[in-house]
Structures are given as C-alpha cells and as structure tokens.
C-alpha cells in the first residue's frame, strides 16, 4: 500500500495496515510523536484501531531544537 508520509510517497506492507503497525515499521513505537492523517490529528490511543487507506496523507511530527 502506498501513502504520502511527510510529503513523500511511502510503500509499506505491514499487516494489518494500521497506523500502529506503520509507526512500528518506522521504529517509533512508544516514541514521542504526533500524527496527522488527512489533516486531522490522530490521538495516540487510536493508533491501534486506525486503518490506513491507499493515498492517505500522513504527517509524523516530533520535537526538535528551536528557540
């Protein structure tokens, strides 16, 4: 399945295609991130039950150094 991940096409094969599994494939399970799917924030509690669809637009957000 292909989604848009942080503006880039991203192919993934995790089954089932939940947001939790996608995050696991990135190595970010339990890390401090925020996720937006098609413009809406997905709360952490919903990662397991959020099924991804072809062409979903996902933004994975972290805290970085800034002033």
């Amino acid at each position, binding site marked *: 399945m292909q989604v848009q*991940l942080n503006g880039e096409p991203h192919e993934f094969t995790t089954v089932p295609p939940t947001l939790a599994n996608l995050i696991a494939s990135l190595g970010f399970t339990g890390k401090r991130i925020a996720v937006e799917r098609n413009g809406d924030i997905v709360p952490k509690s919903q990662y397991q039950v959020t099924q991804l669809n072809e062409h979903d637009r996902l*933004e*994975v*957000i972290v805290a970085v*150094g800034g*002033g």
Partner: protein
Amino acid sequence: MVKDKAAEDRLVIAGREYRSRLLVGTGKYRDYDETRRAVEASGAEIVTVAIRRLDLKAGEHQQLLDILPPDRYTLLPNTAGCYSAEEAVRTLRLARELLDDHTLVKLEVLGDSQTLFPNMPETLKAAETLVKEGFQVMVYCSDDPIQAKMLEDIGCIAIMPLASLIGSGMGILNPWNLRLILDQSKVPVLVDAGVGTASDATLSMELGCAGVLMNTAIAKADNPVLMAEAMKWGVIAGRQAYLAGRMPRRYYDAQPSSPTQGISPLL
C-alpha cells in the same frame, strides 16, 4: 529583608513556580550533547522546542526529548516558522498531542522571513483561538504597548516583546517601550529575542522584566556552555538589582562617597 526577598523570589508561569528567570531555546547547537550541556549550565527550567516533521531519511538517532527529562524541564513548544494564525494553531495542537495534553505554549507568528518581525494581526487571531481551546499562551510580540495590552486582554499568560530582531544579538533597542509594557501589564513580561550578551540580559531584568528568553546568544557564542552560565548570572544580577532598587541618577551633582568632615589640613 531584601536578601530574603531575593531568596524567595520566584517566577510564576501558569501557576507553577520557577527559581530561574532565564528561559532558553534548544536550536542552533552543534549537537544534542552541546544542547544538553548549555541548557544545564544556564540553570533554565523552561526550555523551548520546535515542532517539525520527523526526518525519515535520518534513520534512528537520538531525539531531542531524550536529553530533556520532563521531570526537570518544563517544555515550551513554539510555532517558529509559522506565518499565519492557522499554521500556528495547527502546530500547537500537534504539540499538545505530542506532549500528552501539554497546554503551555509559545506563540509566534512571523510576518517576514528577512526580519522575523511578528505579524501582529495574525498573532492576535491565533491567541484568541488558542486561549479558547484551553492553551496557556506565552506570546512573542512587537514592543507595541497597545497590542501587548490586546494580547493580555485576550488571556495570554505572558507577554514576550522582542528587544531586537530574532537572532540579531542587538540588545534592547527600545527600553522605553518595554517600560510602557511593563508598567501596564498584570501578567509576566519577558524579553524574547535580541539579547546578545550577558549585560543585555541584566538590563532586561533591571527594567523589571519577569524573565528573559534567548537562544542564539548562547548557541552561537564561541563557547556556548560558558555563555549559558554567564547568562544565568546576568539574569540573577539584573533581578537582584531590580529588587534592591537602584539609586537615583544625579545628572549635574556629584556626591562624595567619603566623609567631607575630618579632613586633616596641611600644617
């Protein structure tokens, strides 16, 4: 008595007390180790962070939040790089989710990439939405007392006018405007942006600011860790001088420090 006053002096932000009145950013350091050492040396308890896309190409590396233990630092997510109210509100909603319902935030809406001067109409608009949504908003703004008052009336919990342009190190260009804002505000006023060296931080505090927020002055010093410590003492010195109350200025009238009586004349 004044000594006691200084010992018990606390900065109160969103109902929480802080010993340090220096707030620091975490950008522009060589690496996270230098960031950590500089933040530690500064004594800061409130630390700003930016909200960005995860860099998928970078692979697995240390995350900023790993070096900033939440029990030690209050994180202040910012909206740096946002040029509209809509972008700023979105960024802070993401920050709230990222930091587990954290509502203390730094709002900045920029108007121009050359000067990074705030876009005040958009800042006011964003502040209104954020306050309604339950955020506790510390707001970067121009040093215009009228708009500072508008932000306070909206419900911002701290007013943070620029001393000079972000990252410029030009110091306090308009202390008189800062004084106007300080005199009218019932919430803490902090200098945000423009500090270049420790004396700028001291001067901000002598004017009566509740605190100073800086990043570049520390991160871009030749020795950031040493400058971080200098800033810590600069803020403390300025705060103590403010609490102590400076002597009046006497423009045309010298006053000897030594007794004028009992001078032994030449025999």
